[in-house]
């Protein structure tokens, strides 16, 4: 079988997911021998932007007109498009404040002499093109990336367990930061894969892998509130990495909880 033709692209981002691929270190040479890497601007200079691709990995948000152009061009050439990293999958940190106008943000940072700076709202890849597979993480876990490539080489997509950071944390028998320290933690909502890296070091989960499917926003919101964590603090915590996915759910639940409490007082 011919080696699959692969392109690795970075839109507006910190390049952390591409760095995670470079950090595959020992496995990278083998990886490169199994793939025909046609384009990877971060790591090579002989890039071919014409050929059809079997797989395109795309990191980052659509944050400029050039990003959108690049993404559409890559999509039109690629059989499979894989979004890598929480920016590409959910919008990540860049989409944290999409409720503020980009024009206002530009003015706050650069003043009134910045008309040349793009004010496109930061959006995940799926907002503009079809995506065949999504691997979240900030950055992605290299073991998951290697598993993904292994599956793709066999003509398949990987099945990662749909569990949470909270489960991984329990399996490590860590003391619960919410129950024992009353700290807001996104672990119960957040997709597993990191091995509960932060809570194991006593840092509450900030949700950098984004939410699992059918996350229990309402139950989690109530659990946090029952530890006297304010609505504001919960929203700050959940509004960092996957804000567009989480915020609407949290707001709805906050409102219904407030109403319930009002009714209870009336009774």
């Amino acid at each position: 079988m011919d080696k699959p033709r692969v392109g690795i692209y970075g839109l507006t981002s910190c390049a952390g997911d591409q760095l995670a691929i470079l950090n595959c270190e020992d496995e990278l040479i083998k990886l490169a021998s199994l793939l025909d890497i046609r384009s990877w601007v971060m790591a090579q200079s002989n890039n071919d932007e014409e050929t059809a691709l079997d797989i395109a990995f795309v990191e980052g948000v659509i944050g400029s007109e050039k990003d959108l152009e690049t993404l559409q061009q890559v999509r039109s050439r690629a059989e499979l498009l894989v979004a890598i990293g929480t920016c590409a999958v959910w919008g990540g940190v860049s989409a944290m404040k999409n409720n503020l106008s980009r024009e206002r943000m530009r003015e706050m940072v650069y003043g009134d002499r910045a008309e040349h700076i793009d004010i496109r709202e930061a959006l995940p890849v799926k907002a503009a093109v079809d995506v065949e597979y999504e691997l979240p993480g900030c950055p992605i876990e290299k073991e998951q990336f290697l598993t993904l490539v292994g599956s793709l080489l066999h003509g398949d997509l990987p099945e990662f367990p749909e569990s949470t950071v909270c489960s991984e944390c329990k399996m490590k028998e860590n003391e619960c930061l919410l129950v024992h320290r009353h700290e807001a933690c996104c672990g119960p909502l957040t997709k597993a894969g990191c091995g509960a890296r932060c809570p194991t070091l006593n840092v509450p989960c900030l949700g950098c892998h984004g939410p699992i499917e059918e996350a229990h926003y309402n139950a989690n919101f109530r659990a946090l509130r029952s530890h006297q964590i304010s609505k504001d603090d919960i929203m700050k915590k959940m509004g960092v990495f996957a804000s567009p996915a989480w915020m609407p759910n949290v707001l709805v639940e906050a409102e219904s909880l407030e109403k319930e409490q009002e009714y209870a007082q009336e009774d």
Partner: protein
Amino acid sequence: MPKKINQAIDIPHLGRVEGHGGIHVEISDGEISKVDMAIYEGSRYYEVLIVGKHFAEVPQIVSRVCAICSADHTLASQMAVEDAMGIKITPRTRLMRGLLLHGSMVESHALHVFALALPDLLGYPSLLTMVDDYPEAAAMGL
């Protein structure tokens, strides 16, 4: 008298750096007459993103400015928070941070030398294409 040069230099998308940019330079009669620098990435507005956040979350957010030097961004924002709140750190914390900073420098420079700059010096398009001719050096670099 040096020869008067007329030339245009066009680098549309600079490879093997973190970040996306290109540059166009025009030289007429030995003088640089035009320089256009293009940044293809969008702005991320971190200065606005951290407004209203809990102070403990700021270093975790700001560390995402750049993946290669994320440790340095984490430390810089921790120091800014401490400065704003008048927090003094212990000598032990200072030493630990120094260790992190040196580790970051070793990692960043190793990445730059082996994966980003070395292929240029030896005439290869990437570190991965050097594997056939320099298997040991490439493996050590990785």
